């Protein structure tokens, strides 16, 4: 055997050093042989047709929200869209309380859900309203007057538009609606206006003969008053 000289061992460094040490030739050959070569596809991927963009996952939660909103819209006669600005919790609770007294429910809506629901329903003209935070005031009765009164006391909620009894109204429309008298009063007024003319027909028809009769009475009285009539006045002429 051949032992390395003691000087070699003293001078040479260990296997693991802090400085770079050239690898043994055999190790160099082994490493060169076992180098990693990444797989090269026959066709570069940029020559292939673009893959389809990932389809939007149908969100179950969004579906539930949409179903809820649709049910609410179907069940209510009055739907008012308002812009909601930041408000204190107590004020919100008070507002809810006052509106609940008139059977008006406050619903917070997300714009995506609202847009998806409205695009399919007949309220498509309300679509541009759904920007920024909105709330819906829904009610099975069209109580515009009370709603306006409550909202006037709350400056942070701005009424934008409403759909009452399948009629889309702007803010002015809602105010005009609030100023209208109730349905029974309107009906009574219409009936009175329509029956005004027929009620006058009777008196109109009798006006001519009544006028003539009055004139003749007057004449008789004057003749009687003059004392002695020459001849009785002719009978009432044909009308």
């Amino acid at each position: 055997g051949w032992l390395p000289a003691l000087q070699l061992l003293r001078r040479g460094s260990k296997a693991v050093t802090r400085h770079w040490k050239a690898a043994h030739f055999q190790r160099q050959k082994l490493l060169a042989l076992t180098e990693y070569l990444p797989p090269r596809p026959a066709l570069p991927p940029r020559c292939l047709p673009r893959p389809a963009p990932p389809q939007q996952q149908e969100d179950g939660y969004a579906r539930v929200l949409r179903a809820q909103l649709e049910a609410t819209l179907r069940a209510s006669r009055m739907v008012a869209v308002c812009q909601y600005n930041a408000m204190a919790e107590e004020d919100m609770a008070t507002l809810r309380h006052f509106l609940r007294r008139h059977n008006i429910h406050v619903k917070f809506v997300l714009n995506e859900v609202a847009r998806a629901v409205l695009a399919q329903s007949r309220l498509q003209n309300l679509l541009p309203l759904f920007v920024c935070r909105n709330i819906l005031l829904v009610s099975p009765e069209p109580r515009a007057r009370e709603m306006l009164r409550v909202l006037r006391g709350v400056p942070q909620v701005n009424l934008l538009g409403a759909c009452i009894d399948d009629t889309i109204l702007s803010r002015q429309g809602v105010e005009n609606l609030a100023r209208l008298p109730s349905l029974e009063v309107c009906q009574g007024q219409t009936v009175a206006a329509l029956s005004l003319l027929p009620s006058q027909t009777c008196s109109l028809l009798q006006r001519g003969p009544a006028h003539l009769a009055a004139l003749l009475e007057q004449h008789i009285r004057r003749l009687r008053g003059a004392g002695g009539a020459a001849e009785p006045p002719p009978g009432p002429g044909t009308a």
Partner: protein
Amino acid sequence: EKMASKVSVVLRPVKSIVVRFCPFEPNVESTRKFLQSIYHKKIQATNTNCEVTADVRHDGSEPVVDVTFADGDRLIMKGAHLTTGEMLTALASRCNAKDLKEEQKSKKKNP
């Protein structure tokens, strides 16, 4: 949505703000966002005397923000082609300028 309200506006020199818009128009988004950010807690806390009014119309007019300052100046911003951030920074810069003027005036009065 809070990126525009990183601009903190000190509303002390402002007397009233009137925001007029027509919600059925397509160009009112920035004005509505402006109104929303004005109603933020912090901005409302800087001046409780400031009256903010929202005027909702349906005549196809342009969205307008009308700010009246305490010393009588008026700032009218037509929001049809402005972003919320621009409107807020404009308002903030003018408020700060007026605040500085007030401080200088009060300093001159009480040396």
